[in-house]
């Protein structure tokens, strides 16, 4: 690679090294806790496999 390209690559990687982990952690932090399963509903019943 030529020096300008190496410089561009280095700058891109520095930006990504800051932004990507931040976005990744923010995305994980924004996760909603899954709704608890309703014990009175049986999937098999809904699918018609159970009387």
């Amino acid at each position, binding site marked *: 690679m030529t020096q300008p*390209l*190496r410089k561009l690559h*280095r700058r891109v*990687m520095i930006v*990504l090294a800051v*932004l*990507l982990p931040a976005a990744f952690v923010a*995305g994980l932090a924004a996760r909603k806790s899954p709704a608890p399963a309703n014990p009175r509903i049986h999937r098999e019943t809904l699918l018609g496999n159970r009387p």
Partner: protein
Amino acid sequence: MSVQYQAIGWNRQKRIYDSTLAVGVLLYLALFAGIGALVHPNATIETLLIRAFGTAALLLLHVILSIGPLCRLDRRFLPLLYNRRHLGVTMFTLSLAHGVFAIVQFHALGDVNPLVSIFVSNTRYTSLADFPFQSLGFAALLILFVMAATSHDFWLHNLSAPVWKRLHMLVYVAYALLIAHVTLGALQSETSPLLAMIVGIGLATVLSLHLAAAFRERRVDDACATAGRDGFVEVCDAAEIPENRAVVVSVAGERVAVFRYGDRISAISNVCRHQGGPLGEGRIIDGCVTCPWHGYQYLPDSGCSPPPFTEKVPTYRVRVIDGKAHVRACPLPPGTRVEPAPIRQGERTQV
């Protein structure tokens, strides 16, 4: 190295490389779908395929992005670089399969155009947890398409290596979009921490490898030698240059490869005309400097590829004074023949 365009210039190494790749991908897809069906018996085959193609593409992208810096840090990884573009096209194909199955599964059954539906079916663009992550994947897929479509040497030759390289640096944008696509998509509904850990480890690996390689390169660039009043730069003891190999020196902002072969030295640009590979990390084979990336060859005294090839790189004047190799900072036009400087201890020779 080829004098005319072919769809693929097959050779033994490429066949082995591509066979290994095909077997690896098929094995991964079969294992993922098989184990997925056992662990999630209620999952549909479409869902399993969407996940299998998506994870295979993401895994392959991490491998692709790691190859470049690994080669900069350790020469033993160079064979992986040789056919990296085939990895890229395979990764695009897997991504396309993932995208097509996902669009058919989630966007094709309404009264809106499926491609429009990706952007309008969910418009919560301000919410992280409910972000329409498919739009990020679609944008990444478009970039990967452009890269796969221009991956052939035809485009490399016609766009020129610097433009082609800059175009293909869009892979980092695609990678960022895909990490966001996975984080705001699959990871939002995934209850097991395993997937988040794998993505996190992959991200950390790619970023640290690239940063380590980038700063190693920077150290070489920063050690830029200054020319004397006659324009020459002292490189090293000529006898220290390994036989049929080079010492690379940073001169006037660019790198020069000073090769020793027999009792002579010659200097050419360190940048291969093909993809900008580091010629100084190659060696002289059959009398030609051979690029370690894809085997492009140049005569050390003229910088010309041997006939019938037409590639040329700039050459530099060289001299040996008291056993020290010197190179003139100013490059000569590509293909200019320069008489090699003989290595004779204690004798001043200049060309």
